[in-house]
C-alpha cells in the first residue's frame, strides 16, 4: 500500500495506516447420502433435471419436513471442530421470500437458535499464527437451481431444477478478523481441510462451496476501537463467489476499487456487489435485495433439537493441526512440508501410503514436485495410484534414475492419467524411455556406453581437447556436458568426469 497525496482536507485517502477488514460467510453442502428433510438422494450431479425430487423437497401442499439426523451430526462435528459452543437447543426457522427456485416460498434455516456459536479457527496469517473468530454455524436447505435458456443477458425463458432443493448446507460466519485477500484464502483452505478431515464435505463436487465476503477499508485500529460500530466508510458485501480462487480475486479487485474511490475522495456507501468469475470483477447489484424483510419465525413443523448432549457423544477424528504435529514427530517432516502435506486430507493420506519407502524422499517429492505437477494439470491427487508413485520413489532411492529423469517419468505418468485415467508402471516407463542410470564400467574396452559417448565427444571436439591440453581446465566442463547430452542425462556426472579424465590422460 502506498500513501497518496491528500488534496482535500476531508479526504484521508488510502493512507499507509488504513487496513482491510474482511469477514466471510461460507455455505458448504454437507456430504450426506440423502437430503436434509426427505429421503431423496443427494447424488444429483449429471442427472436429468427434477429426477431427485419428492413431495417434500418439491414443497407439495401437505408434505412435512423431517430432519436428517446425519446432517445434524455433521453440523455438530463442524461446530465442535471450530471450537464453538453448542447451545442446549437448536431450532429451525422459516426465512420467507418469493423466488421461483424456492419451492415452499420460504427456506428452512436457523435464525436465533443456530446449532453452534462463538468458535475459532487458527490459521497462518500474514504475521504468523492467527486466530479467526467464528460467529456462528447454522444449518439450512439449499434452494433449487434456475436454468436460463437463450442468450445469457436476455434469456428467452427460465426453467427450474429442484434436484438441488433440500441439499443440507451449513453456513459458517466469521467475525471480520481477516486483513488481506491472502488471509481469506488461507482461512478457506484451512476450513476446507478441516471439513474434509471431518468427513462431512467433498470439495470436489461442483458448487459444494459458496462464499459471501464482507469487505471494508478502515483507518488502522478502527476495528479494534469501534468493532461493529458505525464507520464513515461503508461495507461492501460480495455475493455468491463459487470458488476458492474467486474469493482472493474478488477481494483483490474490490480493494483496488475501494482504494481508488477513497483516493478520489468519493464516499464509500454500503452496498451489495456480485463477483463475475469470468472477468474477475465485482459489479453493482440492485440495492433492493438488502431491504428484504425475511419475516423469520420458528418452523412449526419441526421440534427444537436437543443438541448439547448429542454433541458430547461425538468424537472428532484427527484434525489438520494434530496431523501436522504428528507428521513432524513421526516422519521427521520439516514444518513447511508437514503443513503442505496435511493441508489436504487426500494428500496427507497419500503421503502416509508411500512414506514407508523413505519419509524424507517421499515428503520432498510429494510436496515439492508432485503437487506442482498436479496443479499445473488441474488434477486431483485422488487420480494418482499410490503403487506407481511408490515404484518411482523406489527407483529414486536405489539410484536407478536421476532426479531429472524422475521428474520426466512423473510427467509422463500424470499425462497418461489425465488422458485415460490409467498409467503404465513407473519402472516400465523408465525402461521404455531408456532413463535408467548408466553405470560406467572401469574398463576402457569401449563396450561401456559412457566410454562410447566420451570417445565420440573427444573425436567431435578437437578444439576443446586442445584447449584442455593447453591447460584450460574449464574445457573439461564443456566436454562433460557433451557426454551428458549423448547419454540423455542418464550417466552419473562423477563417472563422466572420471572417464573423460582417464581418456585425456591416456591420449
Amino acid at each position, binding site marked *: 500500500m502506498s500513501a497518496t497525496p491528500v488534496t482535500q482536507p476531508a479526504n484521508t485517502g488510502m493512507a499507509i495506516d488504513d487496513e482491510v477488514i474482511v469477514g466471510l460467510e461460507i455455505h458448504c453442502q454437507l456430504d450426506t447420502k440423502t437430503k436434509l428433510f426427505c429421503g431423496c438422494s443427494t447424488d444429483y450431479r449429471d442427472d436429468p433435471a427434477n429426477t431427485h425430487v419428492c413431495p417434500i423437497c418439491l414443497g407439495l401442499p401437505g408434505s412435512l419436513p423431517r430432519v436428517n439426523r446425519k446432517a445434524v451430526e455433521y453440523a455438530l462435528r463442524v461446530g465442535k471442530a471450530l471450537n464453538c459452543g453448542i447451545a442446549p437447543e437448536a431450532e429451525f426457522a422459516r426465512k420467507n421470500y418469493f423466488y421461483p427456485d424456492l419451492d415452499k416460498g420460504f427456506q428452512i434455516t436457523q435464525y436465533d437458535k443456530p446449532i453452534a456459536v462463538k468458535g475459532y479457527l487458527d490459521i497462518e496469517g500474514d504475521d504468523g499464527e492467527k486466530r479467526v473468530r467464528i460467529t456462528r454455524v447454522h444449518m439450512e436447505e439449499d434452494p433449487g437451481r434456475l436454468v436460463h435458456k437463450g442468450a445469457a443477458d436476455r434469456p428467452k425463458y427460465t426453467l427450474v431444477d429442484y434436484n438441488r432443493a433440500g441439499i443440507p448446507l451449513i453456513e459458517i460466519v466469521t467475525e471480520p478478523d481477516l486483513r488481506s485477500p491472502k488471509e481469506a484464502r488461507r482461512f478457506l483452505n484451512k476450513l476446507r481441510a478441516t471439513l474434509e478431515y471431518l468427513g462431512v464435505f467433498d470439495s470436489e463436487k461442483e458448487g459444494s462451496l459458496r462464499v459471501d465476503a464482507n469487505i471494508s477499508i478502515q483507518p488502522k485500529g478502527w476495528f479494534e476501537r469501534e468493532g461493529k460500530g458505525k464507520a464513515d466508510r461503508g461495507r461492501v458485501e460480495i455475493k455468491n463467489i463459487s470458488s476458492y480462487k474467486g474469493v482472493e480475486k474478488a477481494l483483490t479487485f474490490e480493494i483496488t476499487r475501494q482504494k481508488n474511490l477513497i483516493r478520489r475522495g468519493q464516499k464509500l456507501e454500503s452496498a451489495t456487489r456480485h463477483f463475475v468469475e469470468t472477468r474477475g470483477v465485482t459489479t453493482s447489484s440492485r440495492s433492493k435485495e438488502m431491504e428484504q424483510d425475511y419475516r423469520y419465525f420458528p418452523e412449526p*413443523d419441526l421440534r427444537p433439537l436437543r443438541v448439547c448432549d448429542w454433541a458430547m457423544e461425538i468424537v472428532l477424528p484427527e484434525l489438520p493441526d494434530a496431523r501436522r504435529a504428528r507428521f513432524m514427530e513421526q516422519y521427521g517432516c520439516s514444518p513447511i512440508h508437514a503443513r503442505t502435506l496435511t493441508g489436504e486430507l487426500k494428500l496427507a493420506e497419500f503421503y502416509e501410503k508411500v512414506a514407508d519407502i523413505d519419509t524424507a524422499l517421499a515428503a520432498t517429492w510429494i510436496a515439492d514436485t508432485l503437487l506442482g505437477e498436479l496443479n499445473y494439470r488441474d488434477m486431483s491427487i485422488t487420480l494418482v495410484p499410490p503403487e506407481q508413485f511408490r515404484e518411482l520413489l523406489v527407483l529414486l532411492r536405489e539410484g536407478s534414475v536421476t532426479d531429472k529423469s524422475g521428474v520426466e517419468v512423473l510427467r509422463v505418468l500424470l499425462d497418461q492419467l489425465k488422458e485415460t485415467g490409467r498409467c503404465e508402471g513407473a519402472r516400465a516407463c523408465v525402461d521404455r524411455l531408456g532413463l535408467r542410470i548408466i553405470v560406467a564400467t572401469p574398463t576402457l574396452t569401449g563396450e561401456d556406453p559412457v566410454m562410447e559417448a566420451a570417445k565420440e565427444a573427444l573425436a567431435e571436439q578437437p578444439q576443446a581437447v586442445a584447449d584442455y591440453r593447453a591447460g584450460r581446465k574449464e574445457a573439461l566442463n564443456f566436454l562433460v556436458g557433451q557426454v551428458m547430452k549423448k547419454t540423455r542425462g542418464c550417466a552419473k556426472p562423477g563417472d563422466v568426469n572420471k572417464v573423460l579424465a582417464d581418456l585425456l590422460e591416456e591420449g
Partner: protein
Amino acid sequence: MASVTFSPDDRYNAFITTLSGAETGPGRLSGIPVAVKDNISTRGIPTTCASRILTGYIPPYDAHVVTLLKREGAAIVGKTNMDEFGMGTTTENSAFGPTLNPADPTRVPGGSSGGSAAAVASGMVRMALGTDTGGSIRCPAAFCGIVGLKPTYGRVSRYGLIAYANSLEQIGPMARNVEDVSLLMEVLTIHDPRDSTTIACPYRHTPDPTIRGLKIGVPEEFFGEGVDPRVASVVWEAITRLEAQGAEIVTCRMPSMAFALAAYYVTCTSEASSNLARFDGVRYGPQADTRRTWHESFQEQRREGFGTEVRRRIMLGTFALSSGYYGKYYAKAQAARQQVRNDFLRLFRTVDVIAGPTMPTVAFRLGEKTDPLSMYLSDVLTVPANLAGVPAISVPCGTSEGLPVGLQVMGQWFRDENVIDVAAACEQGVSS
C-alpha cells in the same frame, strides 16, 4: 376389490368431488362410506382446499390418514366443501359456493369443515374427516347436531394435510354418534414418523359413559358476554344431567380467555402467510403467464386465485411477522399462548375435564355474518383448546330455537379417551 356405489343427492352442497365407485376392502371400516375434507391430500383425486388457486392440482400421494382409512377398508366416497384453506366459520368462503345446514337449509353448517358435517348430518356418509385449527371440526358439529373431535395436538399425523396453521391444527373424526367417532379415532392414531410433531400414542378405547366421581370444571368465561343465554341454558342443563349421572361440577376461572382470540388470530395468520407462499403458479395450479415477468405473474396469480378472506389473513400474518412488529404481535401472541396453556395446566390439577358450550350461538343464517370481526368473535370458545393443544369434543346436548346446540368437553393432553367418555355420557343423557 369391491366398490361402494355413491350417487348422493347433494342438495346441501356438501361435496366438492364425489366418487361413484369408491373401492372398499376388508378391515374395521369395510364397506363404510367416509367423506374426506378437501384439504386432505388424496392420490389421484383433486384436492382443492375450496380455492381457485389449486385448480387442476391432483396430489401424487395420499395423506397419512387417507392411507390409514384405506388400510381399514373404508370407501372414500368424496371430498367435502369447506371454507377456503380452512379460513372461516361458516363454509361460505368457498370457491364452490356455500354448504347448507341439513338441520335448516337457510342456515350455515358452521365451518370450516361444514361439508363434512353436512354430509354426516344428512346421512350421506356415516363418518367424515374434518380438520380443526380454531374450532373447524367442533363448530360445524355443534351447528349440524353431530359429534366431532379435535384430537390432542400430536396424536394424528398431519402428513398430507394442506397446512393453514401448522402449530394449531389437527385432523379429527366426525360422525353421528360417539361410538363411530371413537372407532374412527382408533384408525387415525397409528403413528407416522413423517410428522415430527406427533408422538406414538395410539388410541384404543371403547366409550364408557360411566362418569361417577369425575370432576368437570366449568369456567365462568364460557358463559360470559357474547354467549346467547338460550344456548347457555341448554348447555347448563346438559352439565346438570352429567352431575346427576355422578360427575362433580366445579366452577372455575380461565383468565387467559381474555386474549386467547387475539393470540389465536395472530398465530394462525402468521403461519398461514408463510404456508400459502408456495402457491405461485410455478409447480401446480393455473399456469403462470410466461409473457410477463415472474414477479408480475405470480402476484396476479395470487390476487385472482385467493378469495377475499384468505388474502385478508395473508396480509394480517405478513404484517404480524414483519420486522419491527414481530415483537409486538407474533412474540406477544406466543406469550399469551403460554398463558392459555398455563391456565389449562392449573385447572387440570383439580379437574379431569373442562366443559362449556362449543359455540356462543346456534347456526347463523346464510349471509348473516358480513363483517370479519364478528365472525372471528364466534371462535372464542373453541380456540383455547387449539392454543393449548388439548383434546376437545363437541357433542349434541339439546336444541335452541329448534337448532342443535353442542356441549364442548376439553381434556388433558393425550387423554382423548376422557372427553370421549364424557361425550358418551352426555349422549346417553340426551337420548334418555
